[in-house]
């Protein structure tokens, strides 16, 4: 796995992440049912 870790206090990046989360939740909420797989 190729990994990039970024820690930032940037409000712009925080806002970008919030937008990504919002878009994801909208798409998930548009589908019926539970949200995930469940592995033991």
């Amino acid at each position: 796995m190729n990994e990039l870790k970024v820690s930032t206090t940037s409000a712009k990046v925080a806002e970008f992440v919030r937008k990504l989360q919002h878009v994801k939740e909208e798409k998930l909420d548009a589908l019926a049912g539970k949200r995930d797989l469940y592995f033991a």
Partner: protein
Amino acid sequence: MKVSFPLLDNGNEYLLEIDTFDKHLLMDAGIDPSYEIYDVILKRISGNTISSMGALASLSAFLYGLLVDNPQAILYFFCDIRELERTPKNMKCTPQEYRSRLFSAMFEHETRLHPNVQWVNNRIILTTQDGSAYIHLITLQQNQPIVEQIKSVIAQQGKDELEIS
């Protein structure tokens, strides 16, 4: 491109959706919107039993086939932060980190089956005041320079405020 992959396994019904990533979000982040980035959405539609490894294998095989058939594609998976059902041993990490591990497990499973296919699982961990977000970009090696550009743009967004490790 919009593709849906329904899957029935062990009494559970899943839906894997592949949809074009919102180009406005890319532009807002300063990323070139000409790349073919596809949003991966996975959801359980019905059933409440533990997901089998067979389900994992079917989903990862579908994603593998998608990339082979669309070699220019970059798959994007954002690990959302809502709580999810999991065993106590997996409660030490955040929901988004747990989802990231599952997504990587799918990738690694398929990689073992196709060792000659050069594809890359890029994980970006963005830690802000809200916590850590886990983002995966998966693509064939030939598109890795594009992914590196995207990662570079993301890393530059905070400029002097960033601490990159």
